């Protein structure tokens, strides 16, 4: 309770001296006022009756005089009461001012924080200054699961506890309703969910951003308390900037994370760029290797017209063709169209391997079937299990037009007679390098008469698709060869390419196209 003295009352009421003088005049006597210890405060005590000025049984001073002293004493008692009321009011105002001041500085401190936990700790710390509590916690709502997860806590009961959830228990009810609550008798509250907690009273406020509840703040006491509306109002007041600060901290965290993610993506992009540049170099190298593998110029075979063309689907394809005139002096020529597995540099290297193998074996193997078997064994022994080559091989004796044909798992080649009737030449063995050596290759004997045409090709021709995903197929190929058979070999090649392109319209070419046309003129 505030303390007062008569000296303060007389001092505070500046007009009291003249009032007492007026009373003296009115009563025709002198009045003296003394403090509780008998010290003079007003006038000089000269006798007469002495009246106590007391409040709540405690003497504040004395008023003495002949007449009017009692009236002055009554007046001073009244003023003492008023002064006490004023002090009580002032004390309450100061109390509120302290709260406002705390909240003001709290908001300022909050604004400087961008860390979720620090925001929560600061809030609880400020709340403890304002509200008496043994325990406290800030729980954040997980939108997905509805769980209320502890962000910060103090005391013996709340920290370390889990299992809070929206709609469950008293705290969960506040999270669900978004309305703060005072529960001064937790033990008898039917909603009490967590019987482990030895909390007797609590005050709980929602943390809201706009209308959205993002969590709750709870202050509790293990001793029974009589929390009032004032405490809830304070907690609500603290909750408001706290919720905003938490949201800001989350946004900041997201922004930082997004920034880091962007940096990570940029780094990945740079890596990808480096890898792409490396791949580009590899492709260029493969292209160079591949370009060098195709014969710069086809050898001339007397009595024959020979042409070949390759159009890769992408920059670096897997088809290969070659014409090798054997150095054995008998004028035998080896014609080859091959399709190697894979794409890019590995395919180019395999193609190079195939070329070297073929060129090394020509004239050294006893027969074309032996050559195929040798090539197969060499490729099988020197390449990975999933690498293989399909090849159409023709060993031609130009003078007679007789040839031996071996197809190592390759698609059909075509022999067109003078009347335009096509004859397919099918596969005579397994792809080179795919299965363990030992499987036999057989050969087909062909005879090319003057005016007849032999076409070797890769599956890019027959598998070419239009927008309806229909394939060009063998029938169209045979028709195209028949239609063009009277032209030069180069014209036949050009015609077939044109036919394939006309069929595909603008549909993308997805496989390499290779054609070799041999026409016997005489």
């Amino acid at each position, binding site marked *: 309770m*505030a*303390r007062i003295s008569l000296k*303060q009352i007389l*001092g505070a009421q500046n007009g009291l001296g003249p009032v007492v003088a007026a009373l003296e005049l009115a009563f025709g006597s002198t009045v003296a006022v003394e403090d509780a210890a008998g010290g003079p405060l007003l006038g000089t005590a000269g006798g007469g009756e002495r009246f106590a000025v007391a409040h709540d049984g405690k003497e504040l001073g004395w008023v003495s005089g002949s007449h009017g002293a009692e009236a002055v004493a009554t007046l001073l008692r009244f003023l003492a009461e008023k002064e006490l009321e004023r*002090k009580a009011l*002032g*004390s309450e*105002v*100061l109390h509120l*001012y*302290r709260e*406002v*001041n705390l909240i*003001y*500085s709290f908001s300022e401190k909050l604004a400087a924080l961008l860390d979720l936990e620090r925001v929560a700790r600061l809030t609880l710390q400020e709340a403890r200054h304002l509200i008496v509590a043994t325990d406290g916690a800030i729980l954040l709502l997980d939108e997905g699961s509805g769980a209320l997860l502890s962000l910060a806590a103090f005391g013996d009961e709340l920290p370390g506890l889990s299992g809070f959830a929206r709609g469950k228990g008293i705290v969960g009810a506040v999270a669900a309703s978004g309305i703060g609550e005072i529960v001064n008798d937790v033990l008898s509250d039917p909603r009490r969910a967590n019987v482990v907690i030895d909390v007797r009273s609590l005050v709980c406020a929602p943390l809201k951003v706009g209308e959205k509840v993002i969590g709750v703040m709870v202050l509790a006491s293990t001793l029974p308390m009589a929390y009032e509306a004032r405490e809830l109002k304070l907690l609500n007041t603290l909750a408001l900037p706290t919720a905003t600060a938490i949201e800001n901290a989350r946004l900041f965290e997201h922004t930082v994370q997004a920034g880091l993610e962007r940096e990570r993506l940029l780094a990945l992009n740079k890596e990808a760029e480096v890898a792409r540049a490396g791949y580009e170099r590899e492709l260029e190298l493969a292209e160079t290797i591949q370009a060098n593998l195709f014969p710069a110029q086809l050898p001339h075979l007397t009595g024959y017209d020979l042409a070949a063309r390759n159009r890769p689907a992408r920059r670096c394809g897997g088809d290969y063709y070659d014409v090798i005139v054997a150095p054995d002096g008998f004028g035998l020529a080896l014609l080859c169209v091959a399709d190697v597995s894979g794409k890019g540099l590995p395919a180019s290297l395999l193609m190079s391997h195939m070329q070297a193998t073929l060129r090394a074996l020509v004239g050294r193997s006893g027969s074309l079937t032996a050559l195929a078997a040798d090539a197969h064994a060499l490729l099988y022994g020197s390449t990975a299990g999933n690498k293989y080559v399909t090849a159409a091989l023709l060993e031609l004796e130009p003078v007679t037009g007789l040839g031996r044909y071996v197809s190592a798992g390759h698609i059909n080649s075509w022999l067109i007679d003078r009347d335009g009737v096509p004859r397919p030449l099918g596969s005579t063995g397994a792809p080179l390098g795919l299965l363990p050596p030992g499987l036999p290759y057989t050969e087909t004997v062909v005879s090319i008469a003057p005016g007849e045409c032999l076409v070797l090709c890769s599956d890019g021709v027959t598998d070419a698709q239009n927008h309806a995903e229909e394939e060009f197929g063998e029938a169209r190929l045979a028709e195209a060869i028949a239609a063009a058979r009277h032209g030069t070999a180069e014209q036949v090649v050009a015609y077939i390419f044109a036919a394939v392109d006309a069929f595909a319209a603008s549909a993308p070419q997805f496989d390499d196209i290779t054609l070799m046309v041999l026409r016997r003129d005489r």
Partner: protein
Amino acid sequence: MSKKILIVDDEVHLRTLLHQTLEELEDEGVELHTAANGEEALAAIQSMRPNLVFLDVMMPKLSGFDVCERAKKVLGLTDIYIVLLTAKGQEFDRQRGIEVGADLYMTKPFDPDSLLMKARDVLGI
């Protein structure tokens, strides 16, 4: 001789708040006095010679700066400790504060505890 504090503010609620904040010092024999404007303040300073003055800057007619300057420079009362009170957010002319001889300035809303501590410190109690 008892120590004296003069509270000067033209706003009555702030005078009350300052008075209330410092009131516990009365129990230790400190006299609290108030003034509602610059003229009253100057008159009180001259007559009672307070040890400490909490002086609002923004007052009509005679501002806190003027009161401080006259007290310190004109009247030569340099031993009076003068704390200028300025509203937060309001630009405070520090240079002017130094020129008029103020000892300290504090911002409003003030922290009651800091204010009380300052008063105790200045009065040596």
